């Protein structure tokens, strides 16, 4: 029997080809099932890859504290020229350093919108006051020059590091290193340029966040003060925010969650309002991974249903085929084919059918992510296991849904089958 595997497969193809329209319609369910599994998984993998990369940039050892305007502030703010004071303070940073165990380093920072000029070029940027060990926690890299030093921080030196886009906008082709640029009313010497934006963000790239400029936090405090004045449409408000962000890097990755709770406790004691938020990238990572797992389950169920429907369609057609070919079955049995031979014949035909569906679906399923990447500029990742798995499942469907029709064919009484018109 195995002698003739080639011939049985050939016979199967012959029968599929003879009824090509019917075969094509029959396998559509499998084609779309397999295709959608591979394509949707590839798109999902790509999206979650991008999300995970962003979260990893934030640092899995890090706890990020951010100042936020307390919810009650809006109503208070209606009283004219009241000063709104909120957010994280230098004291908070000090307290965390002194009371939270296992903290490796703390990076406070402050961000001010300001416009920067060099010769005739003028750009609105985020001026970020940071500490020299910022690079240690931020996963960011210097492209040219160097970052702010401790000495410059102690001396409140007017030095700055540009993000690559700020550098490009201000200097186009010139080398920015050593040049003096004007930030508001003071001149700062450029000592370095960052690779990329210099900051990690949770959000997908937005235009604004990559125009950054880093100066010593001490310089920021003495040049800009703690008070921000907003003038908008006649009204006028003042805000006092000492720090916009504190990144706390914890020594042990396993201690991150616990440390975050300790920090929350410490901060709550000294803040009446909820004027800060705590972002734990590790938790975001877990959420993202859980989301991915869940969406894979949903995807898997949809795929399972469409493949099931496809399988039932194939079974339906095979049952019809068996009835149509009753006479042939009778003839083959009379000439000495065993029940087993008949089962092999019909089962291999069903597997060929579902396998061709799987193959077509696989080709489509690989092509679609490719097109999505090309036209929609989205990352897509076609996992080998999804391709192999989907194809394997299509073969399995052929076997599962082919068994009953093949069994029916084999169980026919040869004499009755021979008499069949």
């Amino acid at each position: 029997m195995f002698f003739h595997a080639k011939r049985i497969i050939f016979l199967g193809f012959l029968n599929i080809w003879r009824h090509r329209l019917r075969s094509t319609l029959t396998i559509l369910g499998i084609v779309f099932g397999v295709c959608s599994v591979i394509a949707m998984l590839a798109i999902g993998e790509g999206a979650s890859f991008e999300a995970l990369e962003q979260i990893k940039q934030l640092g899995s050892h890090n706890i990020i504290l951010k100042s936020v305007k307390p919810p009650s502030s809006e109503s208070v703010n209606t009283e004219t020229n009241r000063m709104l004071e909120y957010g994280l303070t230098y004291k908070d940073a000090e307290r965390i350093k002194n009371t939270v165990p296992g903290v490796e380093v703390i990076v406070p920072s402050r961000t001010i919108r300001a416009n920067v000029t060099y010769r005739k070029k003028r750009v609105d940027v985020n001026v970020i006051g940071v500490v020299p060990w910022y690079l240690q926690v931020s996963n960011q890299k210097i492209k040219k020059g160097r970052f702010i030093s401790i000495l410059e921080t102690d001396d409140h030196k007017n030095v700055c590091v540009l993000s690559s886009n700020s550098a490009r906008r201000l200097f186009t082709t010139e080398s920015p290193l050593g040049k003096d640029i004007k930030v508001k009313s003071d001149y700062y010497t450029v000592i370095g340029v960052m690779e990329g934006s210099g900051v990690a963000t949770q959000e997908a790239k937005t235009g604004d966040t990559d125009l950054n400029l880093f100066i010593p936090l001490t310089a920021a405090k003495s040049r800009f003060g703690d008070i921000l004045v907003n003038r908008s449409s006649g009204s006028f408000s003042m805000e006092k925010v000492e720090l916009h962000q504190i990144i706390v890097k914890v020594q042990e990755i396993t201690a991150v969650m616990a440390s975050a709770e300790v920090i929350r406790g410490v901060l709550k004691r000294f803040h009446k309002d909820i004027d800060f938020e705590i972002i734990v990238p590790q938790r975001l990572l877990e959420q993202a991974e859980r989301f991915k797992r869940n969406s894979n389950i949903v995807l898997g169920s949809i795929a399972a249903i469409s493949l099931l429907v496809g399988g039932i369609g194939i079974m339906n057609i095979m049952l019809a085929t068996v009835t149509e070919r009753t006479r042939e079955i009778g003839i083959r049995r009379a000439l000495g084919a065993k029940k087993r031979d008949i089962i092999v014949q019909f089962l291999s035909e069903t597997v060929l059918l579902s396998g061709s569906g799987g193959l077509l679906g696989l080709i489509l399923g690989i092509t679609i992510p490719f097109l999505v990447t090309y036209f929609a500029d989205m990352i897509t990742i076609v996992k080998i296991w999804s391709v192999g798995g989907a194809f394997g499942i299509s073969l399995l469907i052929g076997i599962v849904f082919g068994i009953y029709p093949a069994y029916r064919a084999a169980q026919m009484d040869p004499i009755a089958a021979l008499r069949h018109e």
Partner: protein
Amino acid sequence: MSIVEVIDLYKEYPLGDHTVEVLHGVDVTIEQGEYVSIMGPSGSGKSTFLNILGCLDQPTQGKYYLGGTDVSTLDDNDLSDIRRERIGFIFQSFNLLPELTVVENIQVPLFYQGTPEEEASERAADLAGIVGLGHRTDHRSNELSGGERQRVAIARAMVNDPLVILADEPTGNLDSKSGQEILRLLDDLKEQKKTIIMVTHDEEIGRRTERTIRFKDGKVLTGPRMPAKSL
């Protein structure tokens, strides 16, 4: 040793809540190389008997020895083996596979025997030549005339070199000219000392055989066991 030895054979079919007894107590012995015809009125059980001889069906009671083997107790698998190795069937309605070519049809039994393909198609082509279809080996069988189809069927019945060739009204669907050609081929087989058992309604055809077994109501009519030719 007889090729076919049937002893007190019964066959009944369940029909609703009772059974129809089609064969009751058939005894037949056929020797190697005999050319035997089976005749009798319609419904007398000839085809039923032939199907049992061909191991397509099993007796309800009684013994059937084919080439010395008791086949009345075998299971479906073993019966398939016997059909494949020892029986050659020729049907009234040809029963070829319409989508296959002449050569492919002839080699179907070899396919199930596991004969290597080249050997099988060579043998099939030879047989196509013997039955006079050497020029049509690659035609699909549904492109052939009735007489040609039956010649393919004869070639197919010979391809496994069977112990017996069973023919159920082989000329029943043919015009007399094609029928004569088929009978001539059977005569040739007889010359080669093949054992042939043929069901027919035609007395004239019956006279071409060496012996006629007459059926009536599921029984063999007893009488002088003499060759039909001398009647």
